[in-house]
C-alpha cells in the first residue's frame, strides 16, 4: 500500500512539474509575439549564446570527428570496408554527434548560466524590481533568451559543429590513415543528403528550445539563497540534458524511421 502511495506521489509530482513547465513555455511564447520587444536584449543573448559558445563547441566536435574516423577505420578494416569511412563520418556527425554533442555542451554552458543568472536575480529581488519598473520579466528576461537559443543553435552552433566535426575526420583520414583528399571530399559530399542536414537543424532547434526553457524555468523559480541558486543550476543542466537525449530519439524516429 505504501509502495503504491509512493509511486502515486512520484507520478503526481512529475505531472505537476510537467504542467508547470508547459505553462511556462506557453507563457514565454505568447510574450515572444506580443510587444514590447527588446531587440538589444535579444542581440546580447544571441552573442552570448552563439558566438561565445563557438570555441568549446568547435573543439569538442573537432576531436570527436577525429576519434570517430580512427574508430571507424579500425572497425571497417576488419571486413575490408575502409572506403566507407567518409560516408559514416559525415552521416554520424551530421545526423547524431554534431547536434547532440553541441546540445549537451551548450546545455552545460548556457542552461547553467541562465539558471544561475535568473536565480540570482530572483533571490536579490531584481525580478521584483523589474515589475515595479513597469517591465514584464517574461518579455525582458525569458523571451529573448529562448528566442536567441532557438535561432543560434541551428544557424550558428550546429552548422559549425557539423562542419568542424567532418573536418576533424577529414584531417585524420588524409594525414594519418592514407586517404586521398579529393576522394574523401567527394565521398563526403556525394553521400550527404538534404534530409541529413534538415534532421540536424531540426534537432538543433528542438535542443535549443529545451536548453533555454530549462535554464529559464529553473532560474526564474529559484527559492532561497545561494543554495537555491545552486539547486536550480543543477536541475537546469540535468533536465536539459535529459530532454536533449529524449527529444533526439523522437526527432530521429520522425526523420528516419522506415
Amino acid at each position, binding site marked *: 500500500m505504501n509502495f503504491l502511495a509512493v509511486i502515486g506521489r512520484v507520478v503526481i509530482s512529475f505531472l505537476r512539474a510537467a504542467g508547470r513547465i508547459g505553462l511556462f513555455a506557453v507563457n514565454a511564447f505568447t510574450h515572444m509575439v506580443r510587444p514590447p520587444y527588446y531587440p538589444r536584449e535579444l542581440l546580447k543573448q544571441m552573442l552570448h549564446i552563439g558566438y561565445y559558445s563557438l570555441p568549446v563547441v568547435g573543439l569538442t566536435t573537432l576531436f570527436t570527428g577525429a576519434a570517430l574516423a580512427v574508430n571507424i577505420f579500425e572497425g571497417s578494416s576488419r571486413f575490408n570496408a575502409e572506403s566507407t569511412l567518409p560516408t559514416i563520418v559525415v552521416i554520424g556527425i551530421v545526423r547524431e554527434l554534431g547536434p547532440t554533442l553541441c546540445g549537451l555542451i551548450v546545455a552545460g554552458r548556457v542552461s547553467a548560466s541562465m539558471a544561475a543568472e535568473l536565480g540570482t536575480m530572483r533571490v536579490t*529581488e531584481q525580478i521584483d524590481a523589474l515589475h*515595479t519598473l513597469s517591465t514584464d520579466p517574461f518579455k525582458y528576461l525569458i523571451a529573448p533568451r529562448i528566442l536567441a537559443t532557438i535561432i543560434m543553435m541551428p544557424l550558428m552552433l550546429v552548422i559549425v559543429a557539423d562542419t568542424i566535426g567532418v573536418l576533424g575526420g577529414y584531417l585524420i583520414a588524409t594525414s594519418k590513415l592514407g586517404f586521398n583528399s579529393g576522394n574523401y571530399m567527394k565521398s563526403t559530399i556525394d553521400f550527404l543528403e538534404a534530409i541529413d542536414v534538415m534532421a540536424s537543424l531540426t534537432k538543433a532547434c528542438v535542443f535549443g528550445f529545451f536548453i533555454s526553457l530549462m535554464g529559464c524555468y529553473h532560474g526564474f523559480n529559484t527559492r532561497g539563497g545561494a543554495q537555491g541558486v545552486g539547486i536550480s543550476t543543477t536541475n537546469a543542466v540535468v533536465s536539459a540534458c535529459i530532454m536533449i537525449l529524449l527529444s533526439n530519439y523522437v526527432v530521429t524516429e520522425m526523420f528516419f524511421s522506415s
Partner: protein
Amino acid sequence: MSDLIPKISLKGLNKSFGDKVVLDSVDLDVMTGESMVIIGGSGSGKSVTLKCILGLLEPDGGSIKIDGKEMIGISDTERKEILSKFGMLFQGGALFDSLPVWENVAFGLLAQRLHNRADAKEIAIEKLRRVGLSPDVAILNPAELSGGMQKRVGLARAIAANPEIIFFDEPTTGLDPIMSDVINELIVECVKDVGATAVTITHDMSSVRKIADNVAMIYHSNIIWTGPKDKIDQSGSDYIDQFINGKAEGPIKMEILKG
C-alpha cells in the same frame, strides 16, 4: 474632493502562506503627500504588505485601492499603468548587475518609452547628482559600488520617473549610523522634491523619527497602532513602548517565548 480619497487604502487585507497567517484583515489609509512608516518585528508582515500593494503577491482577500481604484482583480495592462505611478527602493538595492549605473537609474524611463537613450542618460546623471553621486559613477557597474552608494543609486532609480508613490523597504539596513542618517536625509529631501506619497518599512527608530509623518505598527499579522510620529512615545501601548525602546522585556518577547 480627491484630497479626501486616500492615495493608498487597504481594507481587510488577508494573506497566508499555507497555515501561516501573515496578514489578518489589515486596514490602512495613506493620504496624498503623507510619509507613512510601518514598523514591526521580523516576519510580522511588513514586506508582504508592500508586495501585495505592488501586485508581487496575490492577497487571499480584502481590498487594495490606489487613488480610489481597486487593484485586486484588474488586468495586467491596468496594473502596469498604475505601477508606473510607483517607485521603490529595495532593501538590498536590487540593482541590475548586467547594466551600468546610469541604465539602472534610467531603466523605468526607457521601459516606459518616455525618453530616448541620450535624454534618459542625462536625466539619470541629474538624479545621481541629486543623491550626491558624481557623474563618473554613471558608467560604473553596481558591483563596483559600496553598500551606501548602491542605496543611493537605488534611491535615484526610485525617483527617476518622478513617481507619485515611493516605497522604501528597510532603507538603512546594513549601513553604518552616519550613512543611515545620510540616506534618511536624502529620502526626506527626495520625497519632498517630487511631492510623492511615501511608505517606508523599517526596524530602525532613527529612520522612523526622521522620515515619518505617521507611523503604523504591525504585530501578529495586524496593525495594532497608527498615529502621528510625535505621539508614538505616548501611544499607551506596551507593545509599541517595547519596540521603540528596544527592550528585551515586554509582551513581544513573552509571545515569542510562548511560541
